[in-house]
């Protein structure tokens, strides 16, 4: 809409010898964008319309794969799992990140820089390594849990049992991403004009009041962004369950998360078409949820 108005104004002067200069600048990006972004999506959509069988080859099936996914109990159980993860783990993680960000921003801590970097450090550990490390600590026979049990004569439940494995993954993900989210929130706090704090102090506002009336409203945009990243992250959960499956094969099913389901379908079952469909359906769900959160978050901000 903006661009239309723009071209109307310019139309009389430059309309005839239209300059391709802009496209030359954008061209390299567009080429790469089309190759690595649009082409895979288009190809996945193309794949999702066919079915290949070991006996009988490939045939066009229209929307059959989509109907199949929508009625697939394994897909919905995977979706339910990541939805539960989203509702429980993301608030805990963001709340912790918020606490840490406010604590560092309060200026009342000693060694802020050290504290900040050490909270952020887990994010620098690759997810695969982090999961291997935690997987070892979770071990009830030779791991940390086993050692604690031995030292204190306890019998803690196995964190990798089917009932607890999702919570254990939540713990790993929280450990990994609190620092990352803290950094997003902390940088949002940094741009608040200090004169607001001075004015509030002159008016006799305490720290809690300042947090409530100044800092939290200032954080709203950053919180929405962090939430959306976390939603995407939850729905994409893959590394942690896929690594833990090797040490807890009965707790992590091949359809533990939607992404892991898509992976198993194509790499173990050769069902590329159905796998592509699962990925597309999940991508659309993720878009919808992220979009709703964003609309709500932004509306409140006004």
């Amino acid at each position, binding site marked *: 809409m903006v661009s239309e108005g723009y071209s109307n104004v310019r139309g009389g002067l430059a309309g005839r010898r239209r300059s391709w200069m802009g496209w030359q600048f954008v061209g390299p990006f567009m080429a790469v964008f089309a190759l690595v972004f649009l082409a895979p999506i288009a190809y996945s959509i193309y794949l999702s319309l066919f079915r290949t069988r*070991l006996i009988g080859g490939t045939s066009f099936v229209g929307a059959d794969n989509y109907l199949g996914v929508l009625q697939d109990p394994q897909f919905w159980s995977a979706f339910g799992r990541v939805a539960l993860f989203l509702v429980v783990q993301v608030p805990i993680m963001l709340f912790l990140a918020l606490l840490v960000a406010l604590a560092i921003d309060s200026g009342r801590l000693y060694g802020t820089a050290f504290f900040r970097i050490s909270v952020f450090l887990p994010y620098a550990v690759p997810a695969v390594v982090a999961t291997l490390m935690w997987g070892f600590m979770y071990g009830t026979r030779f791991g940390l849990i086993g050692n604690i049990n031995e030292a204190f004569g306890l019998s803690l439940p196995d964190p990798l*049992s089917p009932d607890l494995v999702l919570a254990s993954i939540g713990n790993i993900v929280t450990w990994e991403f609190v620092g990352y989210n803290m950094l997003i929130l902390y940088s949002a706090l940094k741009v608040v004009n200090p004169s607001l704090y001075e004015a509030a102090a002159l008016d006799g506002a305490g720290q809690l009041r300042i947090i409530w009336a100044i800092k939290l409203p200032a954080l709203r945009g950053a919180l929405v962004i962090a939430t959306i990243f976390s939603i995407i992250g939850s729905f*994409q959960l893959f590394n942690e369950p896929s690594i833990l499956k090797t040490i807890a094969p009965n707790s992590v*099913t091949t359809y533990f998360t939607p992404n892991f389901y898509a992976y198993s379908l194509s790499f173990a079952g*050769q069902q590329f078409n159905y*796998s*592509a469909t*699962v990925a597309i359906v999940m991508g659309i769900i993720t878009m919808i949820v992220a979009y709703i959160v964003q609309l709500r978050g932004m509306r409140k901000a006004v």
Partner: protein
Amino acid sequence: MAITRRHALLLGAALTVSLTAAACGSGDDGSSSGAGAAAPAASAAVSDADIQKALDTGGSITVWAWEPTLKQVVADFQAKYPKVKVNLVNAGTGNDQYTALQNAIKAGSGVPDVAQVEYYALPQFALAKSVTDLATLGAGKLDGTFTPGPWSSVHVGNGIYGLPMDSGPMALFYNKEVFDKYDLKVPTTWDEYLADAEKLHQANPKAYITNDTGDAGFTTSMIWQAGGKPYAVDGTTVGIDFAEPGTQKFTGLWQKLIDGKLLAPTSSWSDAWYQGLGDGTIATLVIGAWMPANLESGVKAGAGKWRVAPMPQWEAGGRATSENGGSSLAIPEAGANKNLAYAFLKYANVDEGVQTRVDGGAFPATTAQLQDQKFQDKEFPYFGGQKVNQVLAESASQVVSGWSYLPFQVYANSIFNDTVGKAYTSSTTLQDGLKAWQDASLKYGEEQGFTVK
């Protein structure tokens, strides 16, 4: 409503990440799944002279394999036939390599001339006509060269789709130190095995007779030894029946071990597993004959403690065994130089190459090597000087015949823990778990166009 650029970027990010998983697994459109189907029948029978000619003419072949002892075989082969160049490529182990191979076959480019394929995966490739029937290259003459287990494993229908490279006849590996300490008798029957399991765990609650968290390969091998034939495969008709007597023998025993919490809840090949094998908390392994090299390299703490005994029996005095693992070399149908590829197969799996691999620690599938006096008399310091190969070679000759895997065993094995795994973590019985596995496997078979009976 206008979508701002930031909206669009976030939405885009959401979509891309989720599609990446699908995109990297979808390197084929499947439209050419039968690409190789038209090729056979062109050359009815290839004579030894043709094979020799291929060697003399020379050329270059690519071999996809992860078996480490092949490296030396390739070097020797090239020294003997200077005109031949062999590119040995490790394209991944097991399933990773099969996925790459399947993708290459469907794409019709980058297909290797020779590929390592495990026995349980071979029917899948044979059925899709992705690998060559070696009978057309003269493999029919090799009857009697290999032990019965592996030789029947490379037969699918009337064709021979690979040459056996190694084999895994099962045996009982046990920690003698633990057995002596708790005064256990080396079990010759599964009843004695169960008795040992109870006695050991009672004497030391931290020690277990073995570990198991649900392993498809192990379970099928155990059913195989019990004489079970749950898989009925006839071309594209598939039947699965885990209610048959052989399977019930196995579940009857194993359910008792599970119920009594007599199995270490440790997954094979994990760090905890290697530790348990070294410190005596996992006292035995019923596993394939390829295990000695793995114990020697992975469980240094167990040196001198481990011994090998014949597999426990269902009936006293019996000698039945089964195969556990092992792989063959096959020639993809799309390969360009099949005569030369077959010459390499023969060299590596029938002729000089076999001894080279045995010297490198592999367990052969050829009767000549298995019965070789030097092979049988070799003393293993790791096993307290025991002549381990005598036990293992005897096992190789006692493999129960008539077993077959599913033509989609790779997929079936991948969902084993989704179904049978429940028997290890909940009150579901092993027999119910197997029924769920059967149903899920048949459902897949039906989706893939098989006739299910």
